[in-house]
């Protein structure tokens, strides 16, 4: 009898995580944000989230059916994309535009490139950016609760918008005058998911505790933004809590497919994100730097991976 051992490729010890399980944890982590958005903006928020998610799942199913590929819907990644994309829209978004966004995110960004694992950038992010360029006025129509109106009139905003866009008559940012608690609890205008910092933090804690993501990217990202803000003389806490920074850092920058593998890579990724976000916010004309920063760094990931490759155990250094 021949003793032939079949040697398969590593890894030989696997844990029980599956894509479905990981995605399930992300969905759980997103639930506080969903609840918060409904509380702050009303029940229509749930409608938007529901429709977008259904559209994402539907498009993925239909595409794979038409292209005769195995059905991937069970891995819940489309659901996650749907929720994140929805949380990037304002509550007043017409539903048909949300469906267009779902199409762009799932079919164009993900499936056309090869499905899960082959997308070059976070699908929800690309969906958001395309909607932002394509339907700019819809994406930037904010609605306010009366509490928000009071806060805004207290600041005598010249043209009300998200806190990052509030300026006085001379064009100076009034962000520093925003009550911090309002920013923290999300009592201000904005898209569904970005306003309530508390909900995002709860989700972050869940993700870290269940070891779904490594805290490296969010922490490095937020820390870099804090440091640069302080150096630029802006009100640090307000800058951190306003805009899509926290949401982007926790849920969008940490997407597995489009972020680096190694810890070093993740740190470089977070640093790059922070620098670009601050660059766009302070020295360019846009209030939002997060989306484009994440997109840009997504494109850089292959290079980051190359440069921060881990040395395999036992390997000799080149040339040694």
């Amino acid at each position, binding site marked *: 009898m021949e003793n032939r051992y079949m040697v398969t490729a590593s890894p030989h010890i696997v844990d029980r995580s599956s894509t479905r399980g990981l995605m399930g944890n992300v969905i759980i982590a997103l639930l506080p944000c969903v609840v918060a958005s409904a509380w702050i903006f009303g029940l229509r928020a749930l409608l938007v989230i529901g429709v977008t998610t259904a559209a994402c799942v539907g498009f993925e199913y239909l595409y794979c059916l038409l292209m005769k590929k195995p059905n991937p819907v069970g891995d819940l990644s489309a659901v996650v994309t749907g929720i994140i994309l929805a949380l990037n829209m304002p509550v007043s978004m017409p539903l048909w535009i949300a469906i267009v966004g779902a199409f762009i995110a799932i079919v164009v960004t993900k499936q056309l490139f090869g499905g899960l694992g082959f997308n070059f950038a976070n699908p929800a992010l690309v969906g958001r950016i395309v909607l932002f*360029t394509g*339907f700019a*006025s*819809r994406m930037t129509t904010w609605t306010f609760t009366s509490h928000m109106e009071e806060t805004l009139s207290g600041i005598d905003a010249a043209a009300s918008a998200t806190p990052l866009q509030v300026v006085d008559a001379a064009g100076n940012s009034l962000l520093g005058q925003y009550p911090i608690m309002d920013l923290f609890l999300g009592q201000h205008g904005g898209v569904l998911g970005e306003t309530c910092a508390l909900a995002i933090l709860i989700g972050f804690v869940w993700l870290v505790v269940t070891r779904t993501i490594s805290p490296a990217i969010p922490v490095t990202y937020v820390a870099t933004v804090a440091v640069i803000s302080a150096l630029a003389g802006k009100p640090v806490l307000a800058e951190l809590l306003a805009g899509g920074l926290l949401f982007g850092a926790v849920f969008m920058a940490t997407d597995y497919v489009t972020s680096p593998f190694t810890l070093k890579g993740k740190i470089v990724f977070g640093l790059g994100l922070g620098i670009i976000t601050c660059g766009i916010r302070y020295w360019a004309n846009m209030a939002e730097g997060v989306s484009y920063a994440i997109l840009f760094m997504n494109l850089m990931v292959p290079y980051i991976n190359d440069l921060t490759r881990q040395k395999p155990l036992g390997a000799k250094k080149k040339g040694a």
Partner: protein
Amino acid sequence: MNKVQIFTNGLVKENPVLRLVLGTCPTLAVTTMAFNGLGMGIAATFVLFCSNIAISLLRNVIPDKVRLPAYITVIATFVSIVQMLVKAYVPALDKSLGVFLPLIVVNCIILGRAEMFASKNKPLDSALDGLGMGLGFTLTLVLMGSIREILGSGTWFGMTVIPASIDRFTFMTTPAGGFFTFGVLMALVIFIENKTGNKKERSIGCEGCPSKSVCGAKGGCE
């Protein structure tokens, strides 16, 4: 190839923009509106037609060494003539095409066809080829322009076709939308070709390939 085939070559099978991937710059730039695409296409067709004839007539006279400067001079002359005529008689088009009208000089389609066809064929054939290519170019421009204009501004040749109450997908009139439309159209044309079995024989030579020494293929890869 008979005369008809030469002419129809440029429409789909060897569509200069979507298959030969020539002249993409003005394609992306002027197709924000269908009218601009049409105007640019017609202007380019005229230049292509004239320069193909001229170069074909001169093909035995122009020495090989100086063929490129010669071609460019001829093409530039025709473009300048077209520009002056357009400025005088259709100033609206001149305004909307702007700098892209004089840029027809470096439109790769014209130089490409001069090099690929007109310098090797008789004037009549070259004229037909020029017409066919130009027509293919124009059709592509109008098609792309229509898609981008309808989706991006809700109008077609200036007439509103999508009711104003529906938001315009302004993304389509941005450069990103242009590239996207371009890609989709290219994919479509290749899909049609695959289906109709008209797969174009394409061959990239071995000269520039790094795997030359190890590759077993003879005569280039597809």
